[in-house]
């Protein structure tokens, strides 16, 4: 008898990652929000200042589309810094330049980590590293696939999804995942809790005024991100006619009802890469890494590049404007125009 109780106790001991789950995975809470989210196909054109002011409040949990410094909504990221948003939670899903900028602006105080601090082959961000090593940003550990699948669970409207990664590692131990058993096969899985961000910004190639979007090149997790997030702003290289969307409905990857605001921001992924449009500005990204070595120099740089300018185009002009973009387009197109 005692034995049997002990057995069942053992079975019920759930193995759990020990860190904080920053967001609520409850699908009925999310549904209650989505029930009231407008699905009217109305014009949603807006501007960066208003969107950041009205759609993000201090303490929100936010996520940024794209991957690394590819197809990122830089105008929104800068405006978050410029408006000095604070205490944001962040989905660090191979986030490189976006994380770097938001940490430079001291906007983030908690982060689901898959990949942060680094800028891939470019090296590590000294400032982001200092911030994380100081302990002032609370971390919960994940992986790229884990965050992808957490967004997919949310996009599907379920509170978790079983996966076969992270088991047995410290990555699991420092996560907020749990170990579960398959009811059909008895196999162990990691249960990934759904991630419903409060806010997401995604940069796309083309959108109509209602928020129907097209993306070319790798889509990373952005289609799930658009569905999982409570409020979504789209920045687009080009606003295209609604009729064009209806001409090829196969190309729509984010439907209008996911989207709360649409902003046309040509060159909007600068200094990141925008597939088929322009390559990343590697010189400028190196400058970021260099000035970050000295906190004072970083402060001066931020003042000059973000706080002290009015908007993204002032920033773009500071760094070479259209002439620079022509060069980056040539690199993207593999045109040798030295």
């Amino acid at each position, binding site marked *: 008898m005692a034995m049997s109780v002990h057995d069942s106790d053992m079975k019920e001991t759930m193995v759990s990652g020990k860190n904080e789950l920053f967001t609520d995975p409850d699908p009925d809470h999310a549904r209650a929000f989505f029930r009231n989210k407008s699905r009217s196909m109305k014009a949603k054109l807006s501007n960066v200042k208003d969107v950041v002011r009205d759609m993000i409040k201090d303490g929100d949990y936010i996520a940024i589309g*794209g*991957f*690394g*410094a*590819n*197809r990122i909504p830089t105008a929104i990221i800068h405006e978050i810094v410029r408006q000095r948003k604070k205490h944001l939670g962040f989905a*660090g899903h*191979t986030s490189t330049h976006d994380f770097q900028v938001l940490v430079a602006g001291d906007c983030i105080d908690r982060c689901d*980590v*898959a*990949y*942060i*601090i*680094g800028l*891939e*082959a*470019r090296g*590590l961000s000294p400032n982001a590293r200092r911030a*994380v*090593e100081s*302990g002032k940003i609370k*971390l919960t*550990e*994940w*992986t*790229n*696939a*884990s965050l*992808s*699948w957490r967004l*997919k669970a949310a996009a599907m409207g379920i509170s978790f999804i079983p*996966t*076969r*990664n*992270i*088991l*047995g*590692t*410290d*990555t699991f131990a420092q996560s907020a995942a749990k170990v579960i058993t398959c009811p059909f096969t008895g*196999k*162990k*899985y*990691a249960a990934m809790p759904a991630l419903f961000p409060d806010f997401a910004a995604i940069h796309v190639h083309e959108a109509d005024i209602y928020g129907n979007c097209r993306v*070319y*090149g*790798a*889509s*990373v*997790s*952005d*289609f*799930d991100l658009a569905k999982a997030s409570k409020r979504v702003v789209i920045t687009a290289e080009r606003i295209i006619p609604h009729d064009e969307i209806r001409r090829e409905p196969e190309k729509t990857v984010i439907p209008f009802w996911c989207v709360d605001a649409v902003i046309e921001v040509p060159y909007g992924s600068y200094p990141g*890469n925008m*597939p*088929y449009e322009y*390559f*990343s500005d*590697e010189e400028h990204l190196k400058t970021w890494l260099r000035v970050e070595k000295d906190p004072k120099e970083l402060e001066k740089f931020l003042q000059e590049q973000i706080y002290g300018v009015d908007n993204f185009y002032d920033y773009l002009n500071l760094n070479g404007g259209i002439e620079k973009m022509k060069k980056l387009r040539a690199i993207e197109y*593999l045109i040798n125009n030295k």
Partner: protein
Amino acid sequence: MEYNAMELMICVAARNLEDGATVVVGTGAPCAAAMLAQKLYSPNLCIMFEAGGVAPILPTMPISVGDSRTFHKAIMASSMPEVMETCQRGMVDYTFLGGAQIDMYGNINSTMIGDDYEKPKVRFPGSGGANDLASLCWRTMMMTVQDARRFTDKLDFITSPGYLQGGRSRYEAGLPEGTGPYRIITNMAVMGFDEETKWMTVLSINPGYSRKDVQDNCGFELKWAKKIEDTKPPTDEELRILREEVDPHRYIIGR
């Protein structure tokens, strides 16, 4: 021809990628190895990147695993779940990892140095897709310079799973059957893992190094295969393709 350690490691890694296999790579040396393999032995090696690029015709080395190059004239520009699920389904043969520390079971640390997670001495980027690929691809390889601090019996953090505590512990934890570390390619030697115990085992020694070098530069006791081969040095053709076609700007091999 003369060659450096990076060139050797890339050439040795490339020889492990047979034609018709699938491999998920990151930037840098792994991508160079895959490109070299494709140009020399394995025209149908299918190279994938975790952000979604599949089987591109790589015009240059990517800077990011999500940049335009990773799906240049690709057969598919898909998504991260698409690539990760292809791994989870068992359709991806190889991947390469990097890391700050590795132990005798091939577990890898790319997260932090120190003994307090909340206050690390040094914080690295974290898993990215490394844990996922190490968990889900059939065979994981690593190219790394070998020293006794990097090859340690006590990782500060297991970011990505090798054989965990050895034996069947990896599979008992729930990771897919039959997966795990396959080759660790260093400047000094090439290691595999014992079939039963899953302990790191030296298979061949690189030109210019001795058994003693290999063991002295490892923080745990290495096992030794019954017959230790000499690692074949890079051929002239390998070096020529690597230097002229794969990495003409010496981004990787110049390190």
